[in-house]
């Protein structure tokens, strides 16, 4: 009976999240608390399943990104990219893509692309080209960049906390493949958009007239924010061998920056996306329920049977399964569900570290396939549509699927070559 209840609540919750019938945070909270109310899992176990390291890491990074955002940094960086490119559209497309990827590796993808979008729209308007190539590339690049580090994408945050793998481990294991995918992606953009981006020299000069200093609202706070964020990254690397979790480091850094910037607590906490945090809370409790009743074990057993417990087939299959799933459903609930499955697979004797990397790569990169595959995709599409440039599902998928398949293929070769080749 408990299995049926847990499974049913789980499926309905995920369906509600995937179809956007109701707000996804409400769906997750309803699902996560219903399993308690109906006695599928007791409160202590459900509350105990809420990974506070994840919650505090997300909170800390939201505060850091939010304070940095106040300084005009993102707009400044975008205008700098314009200057570096000399206003030449294709070079600008590459510059924006690299900027989106680089910033997304360390800060929230959504904040990054939302704040790059206005400069992108302005520049495209002045250059008299469509903004779509720039926006699409920024979306794709931000998801690739976010794959590279522990804090670049929420699936990595979940995996890092569950696996105990630190910031340095993510950087050393996923950084190289993310960088390689980014290089290949940049080369692909010439094929995708190279022909669409030619403009007259006088129009380029108009774009170069932008003054990046004018968008900085607080240069002092900018320097302070960048210093604290830099120290936080160092803290993640240094803290791991000392047994300090990223959540503690991120919250400490956020509090320090808030204090030094003389912002009051209400302002600082206003930067936190509470809805996102409670989305995670609901998911943790719901997943705990399906773990306790044995559904996760059953999924793991089924996967083992399917692959014959072969590490290569299981690991490489996980990349593609995760990629496919993330393309169509939110990669956060997918990852939250697959974490205990991976733990079961590891307990069954399949080398676990490659599985973690496979899950991370698939879950992060799969989000590039469709316009609904990741939050960054959806918000940029929203901004673009309101500016009169709709990014349709079909338009995006033409590029997204190609980039995703190639990214997953590169990931497959990388994971096999680095971890599975005997």
């Amino acid at each position, binding site marked *: 009976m408990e299995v049926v209840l847990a499974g049913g609540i789980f499926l309905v919750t995920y369906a509600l999240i995937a179809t956007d019938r109701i707000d996804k945070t409400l769906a997750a909270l309803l699902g996560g608390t219903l399993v308690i109310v109906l006695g599928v899992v007791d409160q202590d176990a459900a509350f105990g399943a809420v990974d506070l390291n994840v919650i505090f890491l997300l909170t800390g990074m939201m505060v850091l990104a939010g304070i940095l955002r106040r300084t005009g940094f993102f*707009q400044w960086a975008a205008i700098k990219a314009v200057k570096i490119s000399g206003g030449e559209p294709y070079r600008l497309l590459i510059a924006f893509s690299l900027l989106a990827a680089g910033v997304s590796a360390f800060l929230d993808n959504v904040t990054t692309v939302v704040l790059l979008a206005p400069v992108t729209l302005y520049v495209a308007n002045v250059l008299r080209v469509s903004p779509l190539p720039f926006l699409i590339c920024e979306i794709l690049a931000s998801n690739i960049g976010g794959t590279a580090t522990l804090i670049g994408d929420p699936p990595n945050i979940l995996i890092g906390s569950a696996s105990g793998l630190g910031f340095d481990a993510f950087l050393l294991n996923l950084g190289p493949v993310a960088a390689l995918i980014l290089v290949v992606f940049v080369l692909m953009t010439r094929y995708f958009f190279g022909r669409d981006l030619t403009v007259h020299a006088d129009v380029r000069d108009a774009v170069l007239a932008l003054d990046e200093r004018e968008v900085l609202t607080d240069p002092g706070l900018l320097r302070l924010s960048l210093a604290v964020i830099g120290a936080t990254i160092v803290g993640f690397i240094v803290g791991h061998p000392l047994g300090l979790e990223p959540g503690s480091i991120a919250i400490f850094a956020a509090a320090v920056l808030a204090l030094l910037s003389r912002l009051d607590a209400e302002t600082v906490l206003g930067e936190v996306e509470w809805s996102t945090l409670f989305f995670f809370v609901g998911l943790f409790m719901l997943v705990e329920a399906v773990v306790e009743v044995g559904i996760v074990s059953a999924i793991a057993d089924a996967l083992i049977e399917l692959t014959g417990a072969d590490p290569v087939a299981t690991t490489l299959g996980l990349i593609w399964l995760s990629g496919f799933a993330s393309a169509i459903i939110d990669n956060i609930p997918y990852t939250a569900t697959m974490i205990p499955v991976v733990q079961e697979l590891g307990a069954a004797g399949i080398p676990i570290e490659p599985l973690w990397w496979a899950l991370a790569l698939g879950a992060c990169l799969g989000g590039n396939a469709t316009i609904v595959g990741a939050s960054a995709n959806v918000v940029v599409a929203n901004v673009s549509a*309101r500016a009169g440039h709709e990014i349709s599902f079909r338009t995006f998928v033409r590029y997204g699927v190609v980039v995703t398949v190639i990214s997953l293929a590169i990931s497959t070769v990388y994971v096999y070559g680095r971890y599975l080749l005997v």
Partner: protein
Amino acid sequence: MSDRARSARRTPVSALVSSLPIEPLLAQPGADPLEVMHRAAAQPQTRLIGVVDDSGVLIGVVPILRLAEAVIARISPETLLADIADLADAARFGHVVESRFIRDVMVRTAAVRPTATADEAFRLMHERHLSGLYVVDDAGRPTGYLDLLELTLAYVEALEADRSGSSGSADTTAVD
């Protein structure tokens, strides 16, 4: 609440319009924002521009701030870029940057009938964060413009009348 205040709230809009020399300013949807800005500068008291179609029906309004943003975005985009804090700001900027015609910057119509009360008119202005409204006939064609100042003056007069009425009563009491 005194009777005078109640009465002020129930004053029909038709009685308030033109208590100050603030006239409607109308534009066609395809008008150039720069040209409309010149006209607005010649009539600075009117802070809400009405957009009418070919048959003269009000189809939208443009707050002067929004028109200014459309112009400023072309000259000094950095000023607006610096203020972008979230998705809503980014979307608004993107929309402003693409503005070529008045219809690109207009927002939905804000209008009342001549028989609407001052209270109803103020609620609409407050809800929409507007400092004026168009008064329209049954066909939706503008017949006048009600500025927030005109509406507020009616309330000021009611409050001052109350105050002088109260002072008169106090004097009487003192004499007694």
